[in-house]
Structures are given as C-alpha cells and as structure tokens.
C-alpha cells in the first residue's frame, strides 16, 4: 500500500512537472515573441533593415556560407520580403505558443531566426552575443527522447557560454588588471556625453571611471556571476538560482555597459525547466 502511494505520488509529480513545463514552455515563447516585437518596433528586424547596403562580417566560415548564398542582400532589397518575413516570424511564434511541440514549425522558426541573427549581426557590423534568439528554439525541433537530449545539449551550451566568458576573463589576464574595467567603461557612454543626454546611468558610469578600484570590484563580481554557471554541469538543482544570477549579470550589463539583454532572455528561460516534457504534442 505504501509502495502504491509512492508510485501515485511519483506519477502525480511527473504530471505536475509536465503541466508546469507547459506553462514555462509558453512563457519562454511569449518572452521570445515580446523580444522580437521590441526589435521590430526598434526597427532592427527584416522590414526595418530594408535597403541597408553596408555590412561587415568577420573571419568565420559559418557566416561566410550564409552570405555566399546572397540571401541577406536579396531579402533586404525588397521591403515586401522583409514585411512578409516579419509577419511569418511573428505568426510562427504565436503558433508555437498555441500549439506546443510542433516540430516542423519549430524547425522553420529556428532557420528563420538563425538567418535573422546572421543578417542582423552582419548589417549591425558588430559581433553580437545574443545568439540565444535562435538557440532557444533548438530543443523544440525534436520529440521524445531526442527532445530531452537536445534540451540538455542546449542547456550545456548556455552554461558553457557564460562559464567560458568567465574563463576568458581569467585566462586573458583582464581579471588581474585593476584599471581594465574602468578603462572600458569610459567609452561605453561616449554618445550620451556627446549629446548631453545625462542621467543616473552616466553619473554611475562616471563614478566607476574615476574610482577604478570599485570598477574592478564590479568586474570581479561579474566574473563570479558568470563562473557560477559551472555548477549547472553537475546538477540541475540550482538552475533557477543560476538563472537569477545571470539575470542580475545582464541587468548590471545594461546599467553599466549599456548592453541590452533583449534577444537573450528567452534563451535564459530554458534554465527554468525542472524536467523536460518529452511528449511531442499537447
């Protein structure tokens, strides 16, 4: 009887996890939709970039392959294609929120968002770290056991991204150079000072520029927030705590460095899953 009780409780727990996952799943795609809409209203999605002729990519054959197809230039040459792709992306995101687990839609969305990311980074002419905007969709392209494994793979990738960022800071030596962060900070708000757009963030920036020891302390703090991700390689128990710390890291990033987080939030949301729901459809 006691054994049966345990089994029932276990089954109930699985059910609970599954229902909880549906909410989290929908939450993640809702965040992704909001992120895309923010970018749309900012004018950096397909339709916003229409007509742009200047791009600069780096030494990265993966990006070269995409640009060799001529797709980015072709897409940005017509406003109708841009509008169509924006509508398609939003439509697919809404579809994913409504009909969870549709693999074909997830594949289409992954390809679309990956192309968007490559186009944006090229035409932004800057290497951008917010690749989470398409990686977040990756696990949903699979079903059953493969979905669980894909989810784990992307989760490791996410953790490695932040952990490796901390390791770069350690191995490149910046962590031992006390003037380093203060010096970097001094250029982050240059356009604000040029335009006279002064506020609490520029005042804070000035404080850290002139107090390099405090700036270095914040840099070490950011290093700690990033390196904590290594815990996730050994257990999923602290995933939500890691998520909270990484969100703190990104908030700090925006306040001190003027680096926005939109594009990465939904990806971080993957850390909210307790257990992967391996059912393919609702």
């Amino acid at each position, binding site marked *: 009887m006691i054994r049966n009780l345990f089994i029932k409780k276990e089954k109930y727990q699985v059910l609970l996890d599954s229902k909880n996952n549906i909410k989290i799943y929908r939450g993640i795609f809702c965040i992704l939709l909001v992120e895309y809409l*923010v*970018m749309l209203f*900012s*004018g*950096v999605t397909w339709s*916003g970039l229409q*007509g*742009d*002729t*200047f791009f*600069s*990519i*780096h*030494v*990265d*054959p*993966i990006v*070269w392959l995409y*640009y*060799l197809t001529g797709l980015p230039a072709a897409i940005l*040459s017509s406003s109708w294609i841009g509008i169509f792709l924006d509508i398609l992306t939003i439509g697919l995101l809404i579809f994913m929120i409504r009909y969870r687990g549709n693999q074909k839609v997830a594949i289409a969305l992954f390809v679309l968002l990956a192309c968007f*990311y490559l186009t944006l*980074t090229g*035409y*932004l*002419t*800057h*290497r*951008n*770290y917010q*690749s989470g905007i398409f990686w977040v969709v990756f696990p949903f392209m699979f079903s059953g*056991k493969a979905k669980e*494994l894909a989810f*784990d*793979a992307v989760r*490791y990738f996410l953790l490695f*991204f*932040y952990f*490796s*960022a901390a390791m*770069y*800071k350690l191995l*490149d*030596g*910046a962590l031992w150079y006390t003037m380093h962060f203060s*010096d*970097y900070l001094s*250029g982050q*708000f*240059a*356009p*604000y*000072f*040029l*335009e006279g*757009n002064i506020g609490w963030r520029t005042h804070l920036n*000035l404080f850290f520029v002139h107090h390099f020891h405090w700036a270095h302390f914040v840099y070490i703090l950011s290093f700690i927030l990033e390196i904590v991700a290594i815990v996730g390689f050994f257990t999923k128990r602290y995933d939500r705590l890691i998520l909270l710390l990484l969100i703190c890291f990104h908030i700090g990033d925006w306040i001190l*460095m003027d680096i*926005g987080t*939109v594009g990465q939030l939904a990806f971080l949301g993957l850390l909210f899953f307790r257990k992967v729901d391996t059912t393919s459809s609702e």
Partner: protein
Amino acid sequence: MKKLFLIRCYEYSKIGCYLVILFIIFYTVASFKKMDMVIFPYNDMFSHPAPFKDLIQTNALYVNGKRVDITSRLYWKKDFMETSLRNYAAYQQNGQKVPLENYLNKKNYPEWFNQKVVPDPLKVAHWPRWYLQYAGYNQGFDSLSIYSFTMAKTINGLRVIDSELIYKERKIPGVTRFKK
C-alpha cells in the same frame, strides 16, 4: 545516478553522439582560432586587457549642420545606429575597406567569393542616405556629414577636444529616397 550526457546520447543514437563530439571538437578548434561569432557567441567580450587610453572616439551624423541624436531611442535602434555608424566611419577611414578585406587580401580566394562576403563599394556609397532615412529624416537635405569626435575624460564626463570630418555629401533638397 544519472548517466553522462554523451553516454545517454550514444545509447539513443550513435550518429547523434558522433555529431555532438564533432561539434565539441569544432567548437574547441574554432575558439582557439578566435572564430567566435555564430554558433560561437561573443563570449570573450571585455576579456582582453587593452593599453590604458585617455582619449575616447565616437561618431555622429549631421544633417544641414544639425546633429542626429541617437541615445534617446529604443535600445536596439540606438545600438544599431551607433555601431553601424562607427564601422562606416572606420570603413571610410580605412580606404573604403571592411576589416575582413585585410584578411582576404592575404589569401587567394576567388573574386566571386570576395564580392559576396564584403560589401559592394558602389552600393555602400548610398548608405549615408539610407542611414538618414533610417534615422527618420525623410525630408530633403542640403548637406550630410559624418564626424569623428575625440573626447577626453574629465571629472564631469567626456569632453570633445577634437573632431574630424569623415564623410560629406551635398544633395538636392527633396530627393532623398534611396533606390537600388
């Protein structure tokens, strides 16, 4: 105890496991080669100690002698306008070449390849007008200029100490729409 990810992966699909291992190897090699962009996100950001600099560079676009402000715009718009303008100014200062061209010049890639991965200078010539339209200026203009500013750190913030004209264009008022 739960099995390791790669073992679980191997048990489910050998090909899948090999692909994951291949990806890890590729990622490791790419990281050492500093190819950190697509599937290799920019995770070495702000990790390189650079020599201390007293002077800061920034750029601004002027239309009819009036500066086009960007910092009060939504984050992504501001980021796009700031970064692309900075790199366009660098492109002009570097003899109309993007950084990738310096790398490609050392290699023997075919011409068609180079044409696809670097922007066409003829098309880029229209970019300032596109940028102006992107900034929301759809009216005609008499002059359009891009300046590079050198700023010095002071106790009250950054102060402009020098400026350099990077690009200048005069245009007939009313004709601004860029056509490919």
